[in-house]
């Protein structure tokens, strides 16, 4: 298996819940430095795929290498090197912005100096310095999302998983957010992101469309539009959903 170069490489990755197959023999490859989008209707299997890749969920079958680590057999080894922002906001609401960053940095084992420096850097980068001592429960949705991203980046991961990062965020905040993602990718961080906003899909280098646990189309936004003879990714998506399959 050629694993050296890829950020993510899966082979017939599968997850079943009882008799239900949520992710069905999925194989794909994500290159380093790529922004890779995962599209699909509710229940298509996006979150389940990401949970397997982050070592949160044991695959029922198949294999997955993430930054070179076989997560199907050694899920703990991948954790220091990846960041994860879950679909549901999951930071401590009763801690302040700075305290959340300190805590997660601390849990990754960052030394005190490094942690303090990194925290200041992220607060600055995400424009949260003024809110550093605000309780997280009092933050507006856009600020929460920036804090969640900052927390996921505190240990400088090589690979970032973002599960519906822009749900419930206003258009301006969304645009700022995607600009930051682009910046990260330029610095060499690989990003795997799911979204329901088709306009956002255009920001991705490559896309995979999932349906009923399978990947039914993969390619750059431009290739997909061409292949489906569509003007927008939204049309591609609807075409796949209605014809019921890839090419």
């Amino acid at each position, binding site marked *: 298996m050629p694993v050296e170069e890829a950020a993510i490489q899966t082979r017939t990755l599968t997850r079943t819940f009882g008799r239900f197959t949520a992710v069905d023999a999925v194989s794909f490859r994500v290159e380093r430095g790529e922004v890779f989008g995962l599209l699909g209707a509710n229940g298509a299997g996006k979150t389940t795929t990401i949970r397997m890749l982050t070592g949160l969920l044991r695959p029922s079958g198949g294999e997955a290498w993430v930054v070179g680590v076989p997560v199907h057999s050694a899920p703990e080894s991948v*954790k220091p090197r*990846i960041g994860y922002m879950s679909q*549901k906001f*999951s*930071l*401590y609401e009763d*801690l302040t912005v700075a305290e959340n960053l300190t*805590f997660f940095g*601390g849990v990754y084992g960052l030394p005190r100096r490094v942690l303090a420096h990194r925290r200041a850097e992220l607060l600055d980068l995400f424009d949260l310095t003024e809110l550093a001592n605000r309780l997280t429960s009092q933050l507006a949705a856009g600020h929460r999302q920036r804090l969640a991203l900052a927390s996921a980046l505190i240990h400088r991961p090589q690979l970032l998983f973002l599960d519906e990062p822009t749900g419930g965020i206003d258009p301006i905040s969304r645009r700022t957010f995607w600009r930051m993602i682009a910046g990260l990718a330029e610095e060499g961080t690989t990003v795997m992101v799911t979204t329901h906003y088709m306009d956002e899909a255009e920001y991705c280098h490559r896309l995979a469309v999932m349906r009923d646990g399978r990947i039914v189309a993969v390619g750059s936004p431009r290739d997909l539009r061409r292949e489906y003879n569509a003007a927008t990714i939204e049309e591609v998506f609807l075409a796949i959903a209605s014809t019921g399959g890839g090419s």
Partner: protein
Amino acid sequence: MLRSLRIIGHVFRKEILQVVRDRQMLRMILIMPILQVILLGYAVTIDVKYLPLGVVDYDHSPESRRLIEDFRHNETFDLRGRLAGPGAVREALDSGRISAVLIIPAGFASSLGRAEPVSVQMLMDGVDSNASLIAAAHARGIVESYGLSLVRERLAGRQLPDLRPRVTVFYNPELASRFYMVPGIVVILLTMLTSLVTGIGLVREREAGTLEQLSVTPIRTVQLLLGKILPFVLIAYFVLAIAISVCLFWFGVPMRGSWGLLAIFSFLFLFNTLGLGLLVSTIARSQQQALFMTWFTLIFGIMMSGLFFPIENMPPIMQQLTYINPLRYFLAVVRELFLKGSGVGAFRLETAGLMMLGPLALLLAGLRFRKRAR
């Protein structure tokens, strides 16, 4: 190693911050122990005093009046008045106005005079079986010593054997059940607080999704669990200090043993309750479930601890079961330390029990707790 300690330190600090931010929790930790020990300390005495007593006197003789006087001067009973006959007795017992009735039969005095056997009847409300048992024993004592005094009068001037038990009670000379119960309440308080708080803590993190966020970090299970437990060991000592102060200064319970021993045994005990809390949190799916499970286990543990019912009085199977109840051991230690001042040598069984059960619970919790969902 250093890195590991640092990670534990970060979890520790986070837990403390969360407790301090939670006003309700803070109030519970500061005020509850004082209130609970004081209120329960008064409520759970098992001394029987001033039990309402009714009297039916069919004899109306000086002798019957003397017996009634003896009852009147005993603290166990509170003579509420005379009852006319069976109907009135029934009604008074049924309504709960009185809890005991003394019935002196007609011909009481004349039977005594002719040295014929004669008995007086005691009717007891047995709903509170403990209290009525104790009161019945007191009633028997009153009647017997009245009988004995009659014998002495009759045989005045003769040489009589005079055998009496002279009971000296050690460690709790006034036999105040409060001295016996109040340290027990402290134990219960400590148990509830520590097991509930840890049990709910982890489940709350699972519900909030923060546990998942923690699970994608490289933190080890041991680091996480230690970081979550240790703050509550600290808090537990704090609560213990408050509750014991109430024992000493409010109720005047004597502390005859070593504070050091108390601290050490508390530490051993805390691993039991914290282990239970963690174990529950690995099983429960919601905070409510965690609450119910902990509650259920605790009720069982408290009932089987020997605080309310002596363990020797339980059926053999139940007695065997109490060996897996950490409360049983800690309660014994606390009581003996307070009232008797025993040394370590007296607590071999307790030491062994606590040292085995606590780590066992923690081990089980650690094994059940997984960062990765299956």
